[in-house]
């Protein structure tokens, strides 16, 4: 039996060969099917990487406690500045939520989103149009600080306003 795929590679399913031509009697035999792996291609042309100039000089990174999505009091001042700036000259912003490496990856995706949503809700309460704010979670996939220690982890539990 011969299979031919669209690349013209021939995957041969070898047929059984009869017993009798070897010294040992064969109880049964097995044939190997070819399952070579091909590489796929990503299209990253859709990514807009152009960083926008921050409209204010206020901090754009907001940190969180472990396993928490509550805004810290020290984040308020900078967020109020961003809200005022966005209210006076509206533009689209992106809130990127992150988690530290502890725990499972998809749960951390959800945790990163929860943090970014906490920042979004604060801005919306200050009058910023929700339609201007996009929330993206990167979970633990984009660490800001490398290392498996409390210092690195505290830098990674964050939301970045872009």
């Amino acid at each position, binding site marked *: 039996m011969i299979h031919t795929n669209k690349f013209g590679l021939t995957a041969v399913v070898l047929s059984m060969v009869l017993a009798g031509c070897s010294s040992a009697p064969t109880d049964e035999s097995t044939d190997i099917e070819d399952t070579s792996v091909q590489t796929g291609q*990503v299209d990253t042309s859709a990514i807009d990487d152009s960083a926008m100039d921050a409209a204010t000089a206020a901090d754009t990174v907001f940190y969180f406690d472990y396993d928490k999505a509550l805004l810290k009091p020290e984040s308020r001042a900078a967020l109020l500045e961003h809200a005022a700036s966005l209210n006076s000259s509206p533009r689209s912003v992106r809130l990127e939520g992150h988690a530290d490496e502890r725990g499972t990856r998809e*749960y951390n995706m959800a*945790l990163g989103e929860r943090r970014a949503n906490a920042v979004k809700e604060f801005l919306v309460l200050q009058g910023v149009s929700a339609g201007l704010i996009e929330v993206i979670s990167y979970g633990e996939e984009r660490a800001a600080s490398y290392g498996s220690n409390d210092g690195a982890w505290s830098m990674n539990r964050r939301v970045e306003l872009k």
Partner: protein
Amino acid sequence: MLLLLMLSSSAWSELVIRVTQGNDKPTIVAVSPIALNGIQIKEDIGSIVEADLKRSGLFSAIPRRDMLAFPSAAKDVYYRDWRMLGTEYLVVGAMAPVGEGRYQLDFSLLNVTAQKTEFNHRVSGTKSQMRDLAHLISDKIYQEITGIRGAFSTRLAYVTANRENGAYVYRLNVSDADGAREKLMLESPEPIMSPSWAPNGKELAYVSFETGRPAIFRQNLVTASRQQLTNFTGLNGAPSWSPDGKKMALVLSKDGNPEIYMLDLQSNKFSRLTRHFAIDTEPTWMPDGKHLLFTSDRGGTPQIYKLNVASKATQRLTFRGNYNARASLAPDGRTLALIHRASSTFHVASFDLVTGRLIELTETRLDESPTVAPNGAMLMYATKQGDRGVLAAVSLDAGVRYVLPAKSGDVREPAWSPFLR
């Protein structure tokens, strides 16, 4: 036992296996070098078989240097010589060309104690399939001696992340279960996550951020053709292929918070399965195709829940500890591997769905992504060695362990394939 086995050869080959703990009473096997009868091949089939069996932790091997002879057929075996070495089972075999670039390998498993042939088997393939032949031999021997189907002919999918010239490069790779023959499936400057095998082993679903946002893709291993399945606002994550291959469970947060959805891959229709303001994520199918397990923090901390897909009724399964997440079900349908937090470290634990018993299996501290082999003997997971992400494996009874660190960079998110033949 500390073994260092170099098993890689292709351009992307990066995994090296180190067995760190084996069974206390391993079965002693000797694999006589396969007689090649003048055939030139680069693989040493006998060594691959030996490494497979040793990696299972259930076997130890007689080194070649101790062998008094290298028989290739049962009729040439002097059982007394092998008994003196303590051999319990002996593997002998010989290869012969059968034309058109094909080769057949006849091998026998001999019971040295009973002085009898357990079975004779013939495998055949091309020169590019010599590793497949070797793993198939290992599967047959393992099954005959342990009664458990061998999983040496299976594959792993996993993600690597490397910083190259200051920028991250994420790669989705597929290799043999022993880490050899690594093949690149996808390379991207944006994160790749959560690979999930189709039940036929011919496709993978995964999350890619290549559009600037997370989206779920499916990709055929052989043709490399790929298709974007989701493009919703918010999370698009945690794909899990149903046992019949027709549906996919996944996570969307387009409703405001993460919910479990089911995508019908034929009609492309999404149906929502959970409705709760908490985090619901990491769905995985039960073998009946009628229930899902998932992680939810609806009780205040992440725990494993069971969901009836038809009635959408949920039931909490785990109660011990304040963090139980990312369940992976063993093929017995009864044993779960999950991530359990105990005094601020994250271990892989097994959880018995019938008795409710939870047992920590690992001693590493930042464990993630457990995935059980299709024969249920071992599970693989991701953890850290120093600051580097590595893959490690442990048997479900915690008696056997090995690690597969990448030569450079981080390796993570292993997904063990189903049986491929």
